[in-house]
């Protein structure tokens, strides 16, 4: 009697543990938002977490701006998710908890605005130009886009689905060049990394990425890049849990201070 009772009761703690684990799991996805409530300690005082989804090419400058923002508004925390603009847009329309979206092309921003996930109209805050990234010292003597089409050159491009790839295709089309790369990389950072690792001879990437890579690559400008300048729009998202701080972050990005950081990274003014 007592034995059977004990036997049936035994699994309970395990079940409770499993339930707790499930609860913890589900809490993970939404839990970060609970800290994002605006502090009521004073009017206009910002606090909490701002989650910014930004194009991979913005990584360096936005990280700097995030630190600046946290310093200007003690008690705030800026969290970034950098990646290909398209996958970020897909995450946002899929319900990712983001407050701000900064995309590398108007097309990817439209994915978010079309889904009704943006609040207000996105504004272009910088523009980016393409450049050829080659190995330091330019051992392949690459001086133009045409040089990349020579046989035997290992060139990587971004995939056509991501903005840097779309821009590269535009530049190639404008100059009527056929270029067969060895790989279509999933984002601009992956493309330039293949050059940094010396696996590829050249990559067509943004000027800003060449600058961010420092002396690990050398940049070669080409005139056709003028035909493929990308506008970067930024928008507040409708489901932002910390809209006040998110607006302040966008304001910082668009301010003279923010523009200085961005142009310092190689971006052009819109």
């Amino acid at each position, binding site marked *: 009697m007592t034995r059977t009772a004990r036997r*049936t009761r035994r*699994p*309970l703690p*395990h*079940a409770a543990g*499993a*339930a707790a684990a*499930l609860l913890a799991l589900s809490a993970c996805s939404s839990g970060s938002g609970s800290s994002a409530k605006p502090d009521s300690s004073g009017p206009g005082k910002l606090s909490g977490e701002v989650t910014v989804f930004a194009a991979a090419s913005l990584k360096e400058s936005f990280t700097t701006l995030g630190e600046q923002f946290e310093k200007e508004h003690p008690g705030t925390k800026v969290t970034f998710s950098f990646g*290909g603009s*398209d*996958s970020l847009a*897909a995450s946002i329309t899929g319900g990712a908890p983001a407050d701000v979206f900064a995309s590398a092309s108007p097309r990817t921003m439209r994915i978010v605005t079309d889904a009704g996930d943006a609040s207000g109209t996105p504004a272009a805050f910088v523009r980016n130009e393409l450049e050829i990234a080659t190995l330091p010292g330019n051992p392949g003597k690459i001086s133009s886009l045409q040089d990349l089409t020579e046989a035997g050159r*290992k060139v*990587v491009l971004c*995939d056509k*689905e*991501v903005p840097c790839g779309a821009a590269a295709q535009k530049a190639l089309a404008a100059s009527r060049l056929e270029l067969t*790369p*060895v*790989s*279509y*990389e*999933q984002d601009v950072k992956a493309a330039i990394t*293949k050059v940094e*690792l*010396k*696996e*590829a001879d050249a990559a067509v990437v943004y000027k800003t990425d060449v600058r961010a890579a420092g002396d690990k690559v050398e940049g070669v400008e080409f005139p056709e890049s003028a035909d493929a300048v990308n506008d970067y729009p930024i928008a507040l998202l409708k489901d932002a849990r910390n809209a006040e701080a998110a607006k302040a972050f966008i304001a910082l990005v668009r301010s003279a201070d923010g523009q200085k950081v961005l142009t310092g990274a190689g971006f052009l003014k819109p």
Partner: protein
Amino acid sequence: MTLPTDKPRAAAGTLRGGPRRRRVRTGVPLPLLIPALLGLAFLIVPLIALLVRTPWHSLPTQLTSPDVWQALRLSLICATLATGVSLVIGVPLAWLLARVDFPGRGLVRALVTLPLVLPPVVGGVALLMALGRNGIVGQWLDSWFGITLPFTTAGVVIAEAFVAMPFLVISVEGTLRAADPRYEEAAATLGASRFTAFRRVTLPLIAPGIAAGAVLAWARALGEFGATITFAGNFPGRTQTMPLAVYLALQSDPEAAIALSLVLLAVSIAVLAGLRDRWMSAG
């Protein structure tokens, strides 16, 4: 695949050789049943969701596009080649681990299984550092033989084999440990060399385990993404396997991504279901 004929055979097998189990039909405790069903739902609902959201009306056009077949064909070829590579070097490795007592065997075994738990993308980075054009081995391959592996189909095979081979090694090693070494010893006393004994006695003995391991490795290779995109890159027809095509399609055309996923799901199910009764249960 011919389920009606396969099932009785499997059932007969358990009746003949399997241990007899007492039937406990009453009293599945609720605290076990509920989490168990939750677990089942957790694994199956996402797959059902894929079916529910499949754009059936546009599926024929999605699936007959040459890009899809190109990616699927490449996936099948590369997974098969990777399984072949794993068999050629993995089975002897498993034999070494199971039959030869050498110092540090435990450590070697742990290292062999490392790719199982390593994030595949880390595996891809490691492969780049080793076999890339500038890698510690790859630079010599490049300067001596002019061979570069990144961005080639061979690179895909290598990336897949790196991730999939541990499945084979573990499976074969387990079977070898379960197999009685006295058969090999008997063969040796009858004058067979150690290699002949391996080839004529051990291999047939552990064939089911090898087959099970090969199926697992093949399935793992087919789904490999991280190491492939990191090491081999992404070029249609050369290095773009199905998982890569799915990932990049998701960036702009979710419907295409769902359709591609469905194909991969169907292939995986077909393989596991078709081979399960014959090989997996025997291993």
